[in-house]
């Protein structure tokens, strides 16, 4: 329950599904232990549904709630809440090696414009990340929906927002020999799916972006469009394919990789808050 700086690092290098969550009603950061107990009981009850009564030997799922105060934009944001489910090994119940089977993280990075307009009975943690089996997600999600009268909604990322990510992440400085920036496009209206992968050396991409961006630290839609247009025309010169007629479905850089179906992988702890801030913004616009 106490803050643990190592917890935030556990978000890295995992595939997260994105959800937006409406404000939680009567949620309190002071009761995380109690919530863990209730959710644990709920999951145990759910897992027994449809099974014969009373064979509960192997149902041990350990639930932990932890607060991640470092994962927020400022003091006006709620501290993030990490929910982890781990199963105890059925072979030796006493051994301490627990296996993490599912984790979920509620967070809000720089969402104060939204959260400050909400009455105090509500807690704004509009972005939810989930990793693990969907059956656990269903149980945890239902419990939250029932307990805090909130609503989970899948958060997909539009191609426009993906292009923003491509531009923003290109501009971030990373160490040498980082992996390539890769954009994945899908060609619509074909009998068979056809994907086009467009990989650029990160330093080349950054050089291009630096010529496009006028004021450092500030990005405009025009700059993003120009950047993408430059990439498109380069591609067209070589392959005679207009990428602007296709759909951008995935962006991966050394910072993070995001897919339009609403999944993301964080790769750099330094830029974690920045990426979460953008995602918080998307989540808020979906619930507003």
């Amino acid at each position, binding site marked *: 329950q106490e803050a643990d700086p190592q917890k935030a690092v556990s978000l890295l290098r995992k595939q997260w599904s994105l959800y937006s969550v*409406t*404000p939680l*009603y*009567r949620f*309190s950061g*002071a*009761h995380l232990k*109690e*919530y863990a107990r*209730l959710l644990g009981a*709920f999951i145990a009850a759910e897992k027994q549904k*449809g*099974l*014969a*009564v*009373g*064979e509960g*030997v*192997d149902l041990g799922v350990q639930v932990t709630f932890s607060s991640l105060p470092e994962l927020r934009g400022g003091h006006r944001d709620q501290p993030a809440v990490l929910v982890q489910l781990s199963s105890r090994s059925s072979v030796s119940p006493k051994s301490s090696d627990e296996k993490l089977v599912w984790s979920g993280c509620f967070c809000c990075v720089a969402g104060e414009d*939204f959260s400050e*307009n*909400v*009455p105090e*009975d*509500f807690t704004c943690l509009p972005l939810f990340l989930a990793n693990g089996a*969907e059956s656990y*997600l*269903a149980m945890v*999600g*239902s419990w939250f*929906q*029932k*307990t805090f*009268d*909130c*609503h*989970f*909604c*899948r958060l997909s990322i539009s191609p426009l927002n993906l292009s923003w990510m491509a531009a923003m992440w290109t501009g971030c400085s990373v160490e040498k020999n980082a992996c390539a920036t890769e954009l994945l496009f899908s060609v619509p209206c074909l009998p068979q799916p056809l994907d086009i992968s467009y990989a650029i050396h990160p330093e080349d991409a950054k050089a291009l972006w630096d010529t496009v961006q006028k004021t450092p630290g500030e990005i405009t839609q025009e700059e993003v469009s120009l950047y993408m247009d430059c990439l498109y025309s380069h591609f067209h010169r070589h392959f005679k394919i207009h990428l602007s007629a296709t759909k951008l479905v995935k962006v991966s850089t050394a910072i993070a990789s995001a897919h339009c179906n609403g999944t993301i992988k964080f790769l750099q702890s330094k830029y974690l808050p920045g990426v979460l801030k953008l995602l918080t913004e998307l989540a808020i616009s*979906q*619930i*507003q």
Partner: protein
Amino acid sequence: MHRKQSSKNSKQPPQAHHSNQTDLSAWRKGGKTEKSLQKHQSHNSQVNESKRDSFEQALSYFEKVQDPGSLRKNEVLQKHLATVESTALEKGLPPEAFDVLLNVALSGKFADAVNTRLLKSLIPASVIPESSLVSSVSWLCVSKCSGSIQLLFLRWLIAMFDFIDHKDQLHALYGFFFSFLQDEKMCPYVCHLLYLLTRKESVKPFRIRKLLDLQAKMGMQPHLQALLSLYKHFCPELISITLPGKMKTYFKNSEGPWKAAIITIRRRNQEKSPVSQPLLLGTTQHQSRKRKWNTQLILPASSASTTHLAEVKDKNSDLYSISESFPVEQLQTFSQLLQNIHHLELPSQMGSVLTHPLLLHYMNCIKDESIYLRLHYWMGQTLQEECTWCVVDSSQYEEEFKDFLEIVHKTECFLQEGFSSCEEFLYRSLPFWDGFCCRSQILRLMTWIPLSSFSEMKSHLYGPLAQLFFTSSLYFKCSVLESLKELLQNWLNWHVIQLDSESDSQGYSLNTTLSGLVNTVAELIHFVGWISTLALRLESSATFLLYFILDFYEMVCDIYLRYNLPLLIMPPAGVFYPALLSMDSVNLNQLCYIMYRYRTNLVAAKENEQIKKKILQFKFSSQTYQEYNQYLIAMVGCLWTSNAFQKDVHPQGLRLDEEVLKKTRVQDFKTSFNVVYHPALMGYALLFLQQAWPDDNTFNFSLIKGRKWNWYLEYLYAQGLKGLKLFIESSINRVSPASQIK
């Protein structure tokens, strides 16, 4: 983000006639079924009668039949069997039918094909009497029927288990069922049935031994394991073997042939119960397994919150709460609501109020913002996620979505208030709407868009709506006009209530000002005027369309007097002139009534101005009076003084040069639109002539003059043209026949 209207008090408007008013009893029955029932009764009562007769005949046939012969040759049997099947599918079978049909099906009188069809159609309308099952079990014991029928019967029994009215006698038959375990084919189903029936006292050492024997003989069968683990759960001391845990499914699904029917019965039973129960909610979850988590439309069941934390309790308790709060599950009657209103524990998920009429009453009388906010978030997200034309691959769930929209609309009618989440949903989704999907539901939701002075409606609603309006059928146009009329009415009612509460509170809340409201209402009226003008041209002034347009203006012309809002807007010329020259007396009569009401409102406004002698905040511009007078000149000129072609001064009016008129070669063109010759009234003039001069066949309309003219007018009034009467009596000075304009 959240624009909730502040008034939640009495929502009954003074003169509103709502078809969907707040009537608890109507709500309970569920408007849809009630309506369809009524229709059914009035239209098809005879058909129904004969259907019931034929079902009774079928039943008595099956009761008495002795030697039926084969199905293919026996036409009577074919007919009765079909009757039973169709009745079962349509509305389910009455309880008394089960005894007869089960007896027949299991007695082996008929061939298996008939028995199978009978068993498959054994769908209860409400419940299955236990007594009929007892006799069926005795048939089973004498094994008159084939193995496959026995199996089907067991599957039926498992599938319908929840619909059996009592289960005491069935429990008494536990031993009989247990004996069927011997049969290898029946064993899995018998295990399932026993699993459902087993109580602690059913677990006996000899039964455990039998089960273990069977397991030794047949190997580890999931159904046997299930029963054994249940026994072990009840009496762990009697069973020492370890059973493997973790089993996905123990039993085969028995519901198969009856699945759809069971869902229908559950839905029907739910509608009947006073407070809908979460029964349905469980089944929908299974129904749409294929969809991902949380993407199916489920109205949450009303249940009290699951967490009981100390602090939460503290927050809840206010001045009134004594010690315990009243759980929402127990809330069944209105008097319970009244008694416990101060310490009612609200449901953990606010979405459940939609199906809980008593909680809606509660919502109506409390002013807790968080309740509305919780509902707002949930509804906003649900509408967004389920919208069948915005979300890919969701068209198959259209019926579900329709039902949901229906429920939301009913709630709005009940609360007499629109939800802002619905407003946002409409603004978001209308640009993508095809005007067809969920049409009536969407149009009805539109009528509850809240009135606010910062109106985003122009870009969000009017734009997309106009596009659809112009490109759709006449009927769509009429229904849009109808909805906009209701929208206007809801706004005006809301305004009247605000005025009433103004005296005891601060009146308009911060973000609404009177001039803002007037502008929003005016914008709506101008929008309707514009689309009406164009629609009349597109549909060549269809009478039907004109009726809906004039219906709208019947409300517009009375805004000042009836709703106390300083606003009067005349219809555009594109509406006025088609109505004046309409071929139909209904339209003309409507127009006369509207002009009479405009006159009354304008006169009242003028008088108020003069009496108060002070500068009023709102005053009708002289342009309104001028416009009215222009129309009046045209109307009197047409209907009465026969000089409209000369006197009409409206720029889009009837004024025509003498020479042009002569070119038409119409004789007496001057009189061609007066009360005798007007195409909408000529039919009346003809009938009048026939009555006044029965022997004259020349149809000499010029005979109607002088005293006959007055008789003719009386005749018209007697034909129901009340609007014309009011108009002529108020706007035409009968002493001198010249027009007198106010």
